[in-house]
């Protein structure tokens, strides 16, 4: 008898499991559609003409026209050059991501390896300031930069990347698990200087952490709208989101949804490509970042 009920129980739980599975897959597929639908529409819109009444599911034939219009001189005059904006964003994001990982690693290395009086204090200090949003000092930042004559330059957008508390925290976590102090000691015995040890021996060990954080910092800066908007004024220095914003101000005469959509596709393409290649590592990095939280 008990065996019988067991079998019955298993069967009923099997059907309920089946139902649950169907529900789960249905919801997941719906969410996949919700997540991908904007991208699909963007790509379709990029092949459509200036005004786009109604929804369209298959590509139109305006892609080449939009391409030509996008890189036309008058477009650059009206909204800022598309080429320049791509180059500017690439420059800023490249510099910030490299500076941020290198100096965050150096900072984390100082706390991880050396024993000094203010070590605990420095560590706690950085953890606390991690919570402070950039916007909280925005007005003072802008006023100070304008006093120094640094508004409308890239200095306020790039140099602050040296002090990146979140990247520091990630590096510290990574070092705790992947950088045994014996390596540092061995280097010392071999007569390697402290700075050289960090550059030649430690950084290669940190490569995986560097990769994850370079991607994150790059993407954050590539997508950043607040800071460039705060600091930059001249169109030749505009980054992608600023040009996008300028396009929002286009009057009904100049408005060209096809061309604008193509610009967005070009702007997000590099990030999408890198993401598709490395999504596994990126997702693992996201999970790692806060497990301790």
């Amino acid at each position, binding site marked *: 008898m008990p065996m019988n009920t067991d079998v019955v129980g298993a069967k009923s739980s099997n059907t309920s499991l089946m139902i649950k599975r169907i529900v789960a897959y249905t919801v997941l597929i719906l969410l996949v559609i919700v997540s991908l639908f904007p991208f699909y529409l963007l790509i379709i819109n990029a092949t459509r003409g200036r005004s786009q*009444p109604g929804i369209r599911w298959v590509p139109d034939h305006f892609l080449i026209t939009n391409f030509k219009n996008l890189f036309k001189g008058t477009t650059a005059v009206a909204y800022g050059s598309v080429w320049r904006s791509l180059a500017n964003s690439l420059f800023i994001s490249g510099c910030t991501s490299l500076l941020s990982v290198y100096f965050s690693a150096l900072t984390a290395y100082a706390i991880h390896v050396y024993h000094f009086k203010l070590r605990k204090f420095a560590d706690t200090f950085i953890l606390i300031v991690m919570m402070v949003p950039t916007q909280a000092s925005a007005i003072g930042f802008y006023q100070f930069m304008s006093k120094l004559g640094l508004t409308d330059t890239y200095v306020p957008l790039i140099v602050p990347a040296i002090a990146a508390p979140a990247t520091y925290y990630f590096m510290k976590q990574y070092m705790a698990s992947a950088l045994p102090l014996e390596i540092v000691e061995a280097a010392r015995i071999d007569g390697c200087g402290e700075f050289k040890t960090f550059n030649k021996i430690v950084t290669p060990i940190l490569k995986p952490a560097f990769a994850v954080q370079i991607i994150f910092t790059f993407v954050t800066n590539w997508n950043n709208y607040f800071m460039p908007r705060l600091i930059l004024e001249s169109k030749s220095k505009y980054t992608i989101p600023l040009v996008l914003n300028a396009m929002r101000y286009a009057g009904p005469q100049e408005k060209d949804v096809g061309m604008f959509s193509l610009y967005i596709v070009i702007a997000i393409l590099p990030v999408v490509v890198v993401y598709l290649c490395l999504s596994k590592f990126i997702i693992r990095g996201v999970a790692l970042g806060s497990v301790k*939280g």
Partner: protein
Amino acid sequence: MKRKSISYAKWGYIFLIPFFVVYIIFSLYPLFQTFYYSFMDYVKDQGAVGGGWTRQAVEVTPEFCGLKNYSAIFSSGSDLLQAFWNTIIMWLVGFIPQIAVSLILAVWFTDLRLKIKAQGFFKAVIYLPNVIMASAFAFLFYSLFSRGGAIYDIIKIPLLESAWGSRGIVGLINFILWYGNTTILLMAAIMGVDPSLYESAQIDGATSNQTFWKITIPLIKPIMSFVLVTSMIGGLQMYDVPALLTKDMGTPNRKLMTVVMIIQSNKQGNIGKASALCVIIFAISAVVGMLLMFASADKDGKKKKKKRG
């Protein structure tokens, strides 16, 4: 033996120099400066009186005015207080579905009996919007929902012309941007739960509902509160989406104006008031951040005590 007596401590300080110098110049000093301005009557005139041709700001000396800027924010019917409500409402509209959906997805992904296939694919797709610029989403959704746009043509309702319609769209964009991220964080938390707990629950005949409420939820509380706090601080800084959607105007009827939009538009204008807004953002972030820290520290303390006992 001699080598050991060499002190390496100075290198610790040397390696910390770049971080702290940059932090003090570009963050700490501006933060204090913002605090200082927030107690000042400091309005820069952009020369708009002279026709707005000259970009030269008229220099004014800030004058101490006590808490006037703050009381102006909290006076009833103030524009700035409205901005706080707008920000909170738009955050909630996005956050509530986000946490609910993420929790369900995280439970499904980690359910050993459910065995969801192609998890890598699903995770990659739902996280994808998080790496895309929010401005792009704002732009696309504007072109879809405004009059003459593709979705407007189907539903025939000008959603962007009503306060709740636009807030709903902002919430939807924030949901799409962030639910993948939250799912992954919660998954990591659930996978960190001791599997033997689930096994023993199963042996004791617990239903999956019971397991969820009695085991999963209490054990992932630390990460749940982490998600809540970071999302709250992030939501408070909401800027890109409403700013691009409404051309910085916060239309309709300033019901989409967020706090940071006001700060941004006053960087050269009413500096005193904008600074006070910055300080309030700082204060709220500090309070919720500290609550989180104390909550997790408390947990650790309890664990240690238990181990000792």
